[in-house]
């Protein structure tokens, strides 16, 4: 059962990758100053580990974004809101 391996046995993060690992979401969300973003982009271009990690994080964010459009408001709720609004409108006139 490989997933039960203790964290201590996992390989350490290479120092060059640490900056990207810590700021991957800021990088993907375009929240970093241009110079830092450029430096990370250059690192990723030559680092297979960080390319893989970027792909992992991108697919995570894409999975979350796919939630949009799910769980529409129930028809009963729509009808109730519309009914209550009509009531308010009628009483305001």
């Amino acid at each position: 059962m490989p997933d039960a391996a203790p964290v201590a046995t996992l390989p350490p993060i290479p120092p060059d990758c640490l900056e990207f690992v810590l700021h991957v979401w800021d990088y993907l969300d375009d929240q970093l100053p241009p110079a830092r973003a450029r430096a990370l982009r250059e690192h990723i271009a030559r680092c297979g580990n960080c390319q893989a990690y970027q792909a992992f994080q991108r697919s995570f964010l894409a999975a979350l974004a796919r939630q949009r459009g799910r769980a529409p408001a129930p028809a009963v709720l729509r009808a109730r809101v519309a009914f209550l609004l009509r009531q308010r409108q009628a009483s305001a006139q």
Partner: protein
Amino acid sequence: MYVQRHTDSTQIGSVRGQRRVIYFARKQSTSKVTTPLHRIPDRDAAFEREALPWIDDVYRFALSLTRDESDADDVVQETYLRAYKSWHTFLLGSDCRRWLFTICRNVFLRSRERTRPMVELEASDGADVVGVGVVFAQALDRGWEDMFSRLDLIPAIERALRCVPEPFRSALLLVDVEDQSYEAAAEILSVPIGTVRSRLFRGRRLMQEQLIAYARDAGLAPSQQALARRANA
């Protein structure tokens, strides 16, 4: 007698809000119209046109806040009634969805104040940094590059979202699911952008923990790329 009605909405939107831009752009193509005075759409018609189409988004946000369908119904209902009452304060052409999210969150907070004291957690960055490092090491070691596209995550994400505590869940939902910018989320949540960033960091990390546990339980095997990498190592 005729009047011209303008609803110039092209300024709205953000880099993250592509769908919203498209929505308003489509509306703008028919926005400059001449209308007989006796048929000028009044505030009710404007409300129905601008606010009601966002009911699915508001419901989803309310559901993520309340984690209960019945409570979400109540929050949405109250949100729309308050929005209708305050419609005169809404600036036509500004971002109605953001405005509704703000009201929705306020309604939720008020309802929670009534039921139990609000205890908000904040991010503890030290522990999170360690957690991020662990995820990085595991992702590489176990070949998870495409993990999120190899699994049917819909039920897992819905479940995991409910497990992420406030205030991290709101930040995650607004930015990652509802495609709001950091600035918009900060406005809706009434916090500085830096707070949105740290809540988002924590929320995403907690979310990943849940999804990784789900993938592990589902017996996700290493990807082909990871196996090739190991073979070459």
